[in-house]
């Protein structure tokens, strides 16, 4: 992709990527092919600070929740991390309780 050639000094790319917004999917694949790391923001599908708006009936969360017995947040995080080309997700955090819930999603 031309953009990655122009900014070849970046070792890691930051993208928005979640179950509602998959625009970065192609870029994530290209970054991986170029041996770049990929860091994800907005993994919950919305700006930090408005975490109460995920609709658990949204596809594909409904299926993920049913299968894994996880909360909507955990399902959203797991959906993003199911892309093996993602290096890490850095969600905004608001409490120890949220940290525990997020950690439980990846264990």
């Amino acid at each position: 992709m031309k953009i990655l050639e122009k900014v070849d000094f970046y070792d890691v790319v930051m993208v928005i990527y979640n179950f509602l917004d998959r625009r970065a999917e192609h870029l994530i694949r290209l970054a991986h092919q170029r041996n770049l790391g990929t860091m994800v923001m907005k993994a919950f599908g919305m700006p930090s600070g408005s975490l109460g708006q995920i609709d658990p009936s949204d596809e594909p969360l409904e299926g993920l929740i049913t299968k894994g017995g996880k909360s909507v947040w955990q399902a959203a995080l797991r959906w993003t991390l199911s892309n093996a080309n993602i290096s890490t997700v850095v969600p905004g955090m608001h409490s120890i309780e949220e940290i525990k819930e997020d950690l439980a999603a990846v264990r």
Partner: protein
Amino acid sequence: MRRLGRTGLEVTEFGCGGYFTAGPNAHHDMERQVRELNFILDQGVNFFDLQWDLEIEAMRRVLKSRPKDFYINLRAMWYPEANRSSKEHILECANRELKELGADHADVIQITHNDGYSPPVTSDVHLEAIRESFAQLKQQGKIPSFLSPSMTQR
């Protein structure tokens, strides 16, 4: 653990982003922030995206009490509209944050606009400024790896 591309860093799937210890929705209790950062470290999280001055101060205190066996991302804010878009500006940001952190090096630095969504490619002049500042930080052994602003526009 997952590999952070060519940086070679092995990072946890889940890193610590902003807004928790600082940011618009955060409390401003420094002792509590230090406890929270130590809690996150105790859970094995090894990547910290420090976005705010208070986070840097809390991390500085954490680094006094435990070995740095984790990774830190700093950031240089990019304001072309305010003439803060030069090599010198990036180096000043990096050096100031390292000083505030009480560290001689960090692992990654991100160039980002204060809205978090600045265009990843700006003018050729700006690209050259970013390229030169990264080369200097790497050559000085201060920061070896570089993170783009969000490549996905809001």
